[in-house]
């Protein structure tokens, strides 16, 4: 296993981007650069599938580890994956080609630059999920801001500048404290290597502050209430593909970070702050669901539903139970697929009718039957109907929550009902009902590429909804290992106190 497969995964999109950059930019060539991007991203997808195939699911260690000297001997470039991160890598490589296929529907200007931005973004996102060194992680985590800022700012809607700034500054502000924490960890323990840190552990007296510093970054990125306000703005103004990337992958970085770093490095602090996370998650679930009910803009509604769904994720992670954490990971993957699909579906009608206001639509089922079917699958997935991935995630999270705290679990269950309410109401108002708006009559049903992208998303949503075993299989050992380490540290801490 000497071939640096993870580094290739990370670098391949950048190489593709450079290739596109140096090809001539005339308008006829636009198509060709799109094919290049598609080819590169599909190759990356296949590579990641191969990775999944050769990945040893029973091992709890990090695999395919590459460790190179990087920062004058004291910080190494270290990447590697375990059962948790491999799923996020595959999610990233799976969503990117879908984004690239759907590009020509929404992006009319500067297509080449857009493709480059997406490919660079893919590099950074894969990097986040693979990195096994805190500094390398921070590097990828922050670097993703640059392409996303440009995607929102250049190709966004009317208030794009405001949204792009808000997105950038919010996330940056959250992250700088994490940098302080990372450097502090270096001076406390002498390393930023995650594997070594797992072994060494961090002294109890430092954990609370460090945990809070990491939390400030992840909470903004997740986003958790009350720092979620950048998300609806960013989603509404971003182009469809930007929203897809944002919802499907960017939000998952924080959830992943919670499991990998907050739980793994600061178990005692995580235990101390569990109640805080519970409360913030519950507020996110209930409050943003209610806000979602009142939205008139489709994208905004889905954005708020994302906040609510991520509330479930954080809740599940901090139940510290096998079911809860597995459910959270499953929910993140599922939300990645479903929210991507929902934003693409909104993009389909937006491109035809140029408005996202719900009350301008109605009765689409009679003119766009195919669209109605796929949109229904996604709606049902989002509200967690059994048989879709959405159900399994939420179910496991609630199971974990019931084990730990019945009151929290009961309040969270209310969120499921609210979720069903706003999603079904959205579906009813857009797809069913009277067609009052005569302009809608001219709308055409799905085009070929839309069928390809949307059905590519329908298949995994239904397949893993009925048969979650392949995903569960790969995360089980790693989650168990994380939990064992976590409990071990807690017991040690108790013992040392007595």
């Amino acid at each position, binding site marked *: 296993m000497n071939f640096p497969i993870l580094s290739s995964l990370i670098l391949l999109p950048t190489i593709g981007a450079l290739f596109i950059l140096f090809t001539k930019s005339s308008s006829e060539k636009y198509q060709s650069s799109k094919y290049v991007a598609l080819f590169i991203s599909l190759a990356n997808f296949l590579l990641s599938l191969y990775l999944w195939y050769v990945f040893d699911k029973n091992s709890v260690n990090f695999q395919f580890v590459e460790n190179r000297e990087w920062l004058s001997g004291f910080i190494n470039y270290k990447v590697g994956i375990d059962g948790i991160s491999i799923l996020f890598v595959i999610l990233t490589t799976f969503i990117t080609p879908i984004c690239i296929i759907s590009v020509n529907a929404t992006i009319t200007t500067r297509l080449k630059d857009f493709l480059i931005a997406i490919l660079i973004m893919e590099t950074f996102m894969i990097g986040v999920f693979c990195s096994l060194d805190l500094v390398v992680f921070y*590097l990828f985590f922050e670097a993703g801001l640059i392409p996303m800022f440009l995607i929102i700012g250049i190709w966004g809607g009317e208030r794009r500048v405001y949204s792009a700034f808000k997105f950038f500054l919010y996330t940056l502000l959250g992250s700088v404290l994490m940098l302080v924490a990372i450097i502090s960890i270096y001076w406390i323990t002498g390393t930023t290597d995650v594997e070594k840190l797992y072994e060494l552990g961090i002294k109890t007296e430092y954990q609370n502050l460090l945990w809070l510093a990491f939390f400030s970054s992840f909470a903004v990125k997740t986003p958790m209430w009350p720092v979620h306000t950048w998300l609806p703005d960013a989603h509404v103004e971003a182009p469809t593909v930007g929203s897809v990337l944002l919802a499907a992958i960017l939000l998952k970085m924080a959830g992943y970070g919670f499991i990998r770093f907050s739980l793994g490095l600061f178990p005692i602090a995580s235990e101390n702050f569990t109640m805080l996370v519970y409360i913030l998650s519950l507020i996110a679930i209930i409050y943003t669901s209610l806000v979602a009910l009142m939205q008139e803009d489709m994208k905004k509604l889905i954005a708020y539903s994302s906040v609510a769904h991520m509330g479930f994720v954080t809740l599940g992670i901090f139940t510290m139970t096998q079911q809860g954490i597995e459910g959270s990971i499953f929910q993140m993957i599922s939300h990645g697929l479903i929210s991507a699909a929902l934003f693409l579906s909104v993009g389909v009608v937006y491109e035809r009718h140029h408005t996202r206001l719900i009350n301008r639509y109605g009765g689409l089922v009679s003119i766009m039957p195919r669209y109605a079917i796929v949109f229904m699958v996604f709606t049902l997935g989002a509200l967690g109907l059994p048989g879709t991935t959405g159900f399994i995630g939420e179910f496991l999270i609630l199971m974990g929550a019931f084990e730990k705290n019945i009151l929290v679990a009961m309040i969270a269950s209310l969120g499921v009902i609210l979720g069903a309410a706003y999603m079904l109401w959205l579906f009813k108002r857009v797809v069913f009902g009277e067609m009052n708006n005569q302009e809608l009559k001219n709308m055409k049903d799905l085009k070929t590429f839309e069928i390809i992208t949307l059905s590519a998303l329908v298949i995994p949503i239904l397949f893993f909804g009925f048969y979650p075993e392949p995903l569960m299989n790969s995360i089980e050992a790693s989650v168990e290992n994380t939990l064992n380490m976590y409990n071990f540290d807690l017991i040690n801490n108790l013992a040392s106190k007595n």
Partner: protein
Amino acid sequence: MENFQYILPEIFISIAIMLFLLVGVFKKNSSNLIYSLSTISLVILLALIINLSSQDKIYLFNNSYQIDNLSNYMKIILVGSGVFVMLTGSKYIQVINLNKIEYPILILSSILGMMIMISSNDLIVFYMGLELQSLALYVLASFNRDNLLSTESGLKYFVLSALSSGLLLYGCSLIYGFSESTNFDQILINSTEFNFGTTFGIVFILVGLAFKISAVPFHMWAPDVYQGSPTSVTLFFAILPKIAALSVFIKFLYTPFANMNDQWQTIIVFISIASMIFGAVAAIGQKNLKRLIAYSSISHMGYALAGLATVSNQGIQSSITYISIYLVMNLAFFSCLFMLKRNDKYYENIEDLSGLSKKHPILSFSFLIVLFSLAGIPPLAGFFAKFYVFLAVIEQSMYFLAIVGLLATVVAAFYYLRIIKIIYFDPEKEEYETSNNLGLKITLAISTIFILAYFIYPSGITEIVSKITMI
């Protein structure tokens, strides 16, 4: 006199200056020739310094002049950036009709003064170097003498700088009075016990140096001088005096005043925090790019000083790394500015950048890289500069300084983003001429690639810098 070969670079450049002056007086219309000759002599000077740099510590002229790792490295980046300043500015001074023989000669003599400053190990030698560079800078600032702003900036710089030099001299005399020596090493030996005289002396000297480096609260001259001077001079101002002043800062703090660190540490921390915050906040409302970069450089100096405040080798090295990366970013930024030319007029307002990305994708991309790097966003070089500084600061558990510094970067990110917004998101304006100036293009390409690819091999500079130890 057997050690004469070690000051060969200084001797060489002094002779070159006088020679060029003679050529300029006796040969008509020789300004282009002298400009090229000066550039070449800077390259030779660089080679001479690099040739010497294998030497360890050498003391010359009764210990009043010292050549060591610090001075060698600082001289290399000083002269190296001097070469690039000459390369980028050549076309500019022709276009705005400033191509006179005095211009390159003044730059050379200023560089000579800085080299003496960097190597000095004695208060008198130091002051001599300082005044040589300052006098040249006064003239350079007002070089565009028909321009009101340029004249104003020269005068302002002269008056304020003379004041600060006065304070500095007063500080020197106090130090001499209380430690009975002007030699740095001797001062260190003689000032083991605390006394008020020396403390006052330190404060006055630090004020003078803070003025040269344009740190808050002695920054008032910087925005006006940056804006008023011809752009090529502004570039010079933005880089070279700062390298020299930072080097002297390190020298002063860690040689003669090394025992007094409890006295000066608080001052440096205060200056550093004030510069970081002020530079970040004041830049937000600016409309002129040169004025904006003046505020930006104030805040960058704050970060460089934060490294010095740590009283550790790690901190000194991080400051030196910071200034090295800072100078490349400034070179790149000003190279971009020199590209904004239309009908023999250079544009320097932020609005002039509106929609630049549609017609000039490569130039805009360079701007993008430079601005994100100045803001300190990974994976660009500017991030690593800040990273090293905070690594050193947190090692000494100075969390307050670190957190304030990092929060200031978020504020600073706002105005850098604003420029990016204007370049990329706003409607386009008239096209600019494509530049055919090879030196400028090379500088822009080298500096942008350096910033962009720094993360691939970040230990290069660190390894060189790690040889510089003061404690």
